[in-house]
């Protein structure tokens, strides 16, 4: 069938492009800032094109081994933390999704889990618990406390309820256990939901900066966002040696922050496109019909 370029299609394309462009503009501005001379930024002369082009901000960040160390920490955190979040979420959402009475104590667990979305004891008790568990300073402090995300469980739970009940019937007849059903049957047809959760989990770990700062014992062990946040706060030239000034000439707090946004955003731009192929139609249907 020939593609019809109706007015609606064209209007849609234009509108979406405008919106996307409005999101792109500040990014271009930040890119320009990060590549510009700090003085010119202060004078307000930098809008969409770098002025006084220099790579000092990026060099300042990248040539610091502490930066790479923090990338490593974040990488470790992702590799361990994301699978943990996913498994926890999946194993919690499946039982809670069962409205058919096969789970007698479902309500109790619903309360248990979702109550925590609304109430918490505050920063100090939370810190004390983590400290008493001897987790402060260790990577686990960045992974365990945030492993359960009730909001994500809720999303997955509701998604699972949209799956037709028939998919489990044959397995139940065969006497398969719930674990087997969950991992062999349910998960393979939940790709869009899993992909979404994966994106969320990755972003949550990537963006987290506060826990790094308050739970780690030294900036050596900060994840990337915490590291960038803290170095941004401590930029000062009056205390630098002449060798360091060479690196830092032309940059300052503003260009640093702009470069910081880039470095923290770029890797994440690759995440979503990677998962986009899972957001396609008809996966659920195929499983039942086939």
């Amino acid at each position, binding site marked *: 069938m020939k593609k019809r370029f109706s007015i609606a299609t064209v209007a849609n394309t234009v509108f979406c492009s405008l919106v996307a462009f*409005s999101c792109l503009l500040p990014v271009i501005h930040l890119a320009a800032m990060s590549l510009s001379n700090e003085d010119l930024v202060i004078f307000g002369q930098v809008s969409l094109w770098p002025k006084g082009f220099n790579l000092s901000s990026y060099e300042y960040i990248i040539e610091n081994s502490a930066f790479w160390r923090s990338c490593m920490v974040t990488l470790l955190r992702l590799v361990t933390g994301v699978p943990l979040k996913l498994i926890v979420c999946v194993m919690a959402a499946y039982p809670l999704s069962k409205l058919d009475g096969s789970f007698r104590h479902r309500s109790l667990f619903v309360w248990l889990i979702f109550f925590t979305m609304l109430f918490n004891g505050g920063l100090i008790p939370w810190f004390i618990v983590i400290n008493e568990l001897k987790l402060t300073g260790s990577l686990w402090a960045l992974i365990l406390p945030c492993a359960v995300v009730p909001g994500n469980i809720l999303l997955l739970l*509701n998604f699972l309820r949209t799956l037709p009940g028939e998919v489990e019937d044959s397995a139940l007849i065969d006497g398969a256990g719930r674990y087997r059903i969950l991992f062999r049957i349910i998960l393979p047809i939940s790709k869009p939901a899993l992909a979404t959760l994966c994106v969320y989990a990755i972003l949550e770990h990537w963006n987290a900066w506060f826990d790094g700062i308050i739970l780690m014992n030294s900036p050596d062990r900060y994840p990337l966002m915490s590291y960038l946040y803290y170095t941004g706060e401590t930029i000062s030239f009056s205390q630098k040696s002449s060798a360091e000034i060479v690196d830092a000439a032309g940059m300052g707090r503003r260009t640093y922050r702009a470069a910081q946004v880039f470095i923290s955003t770029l890797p994440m731009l690759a995440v979503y496109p990677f998962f986009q192929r899972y957001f396609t139609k008809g996966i659920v249907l195929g499983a039942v019909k086939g």
Partner: protein
Amino acid sequence: MLTTRNKPVRRKGGIYRSDNWAYISMLLPTVILLLMFNYLPMAGLLIAFERFIPAKGLFSGSQDWVGLRSFSMAFTDPLFPQALRNTVFLSISKMILYMMASVGMAILMSELKNSFHKRLTQTLVYIPHFISWIILGSAMRMMFASDGIVNRLINSLGGENVGFLTEPGPFSRLLIVSDVWKEFGFGTIIYMAAIAGIDPGLYEAARIDGANKPQQIRYVTIPGISHIIVILSLLNIGGVLNSSFDQIINLYSPNVYQSGDVLDTLIYRKGIVASNYSLATAIGMFKGGVGLALTSLAYYLAYRFADYRIF
């Protein structure tokens, strides 16, 4: 949740098997983690009823019990009613606009024909989420100043200067629109996934019945993602007393406290003299209580009138 009706929902001819232990074992990791990192610290809610002084120790029992004093000090603070009002107004406005924007964009983006354009747009719209308010705030202060680019544009079109950051009225609108702009792209992720999950057969059927695009959207797409919309709204309603603290702290100033000062910024300022953990915990409890009430209400309404169990 008001789940007095615990009658199971069953299909005709479906297979059912009670598997309590298997299910409980699946929930074990979650429960253990929550007990450790959420419930154990919850004992600290006691701080709200004490005049908390860190040096006296958290559970030593030597803290002064002051009952509801922190709550009453908060509620009688001259700026409290305003902060509460602003918080609710900003939250609800943002929620509504956010939902409209992310659902709307998700639908429109799904309709884009060129797959490259579609992917590109999807990626671009979720970039603002990553720009921290520190830098966005400073850029906005420049853009929306009286000689900033936005006002110059308004002037060139014949309009008068708008005090976006200096007057309460425009300020609240700026807060709402800028926050939605920053976050809506993130919201489209889940809606795009949901739209992808809609049975294509339904579209086919609608087309056969003679529905045009807008009608397909109205009768197939939107109902198809309605459950997600409801869930997300519910998730948000419990948080109506939360605010985008980072945004406000980077954009507000005493002149616009009238519309921009929220509970979180009020507590923040009150904690500056001496970290006032009692007050912060008290307000946190207040927020939790309100959130619980609203969430329960929303659950009940969804159950009663739409026969939909959110939890």
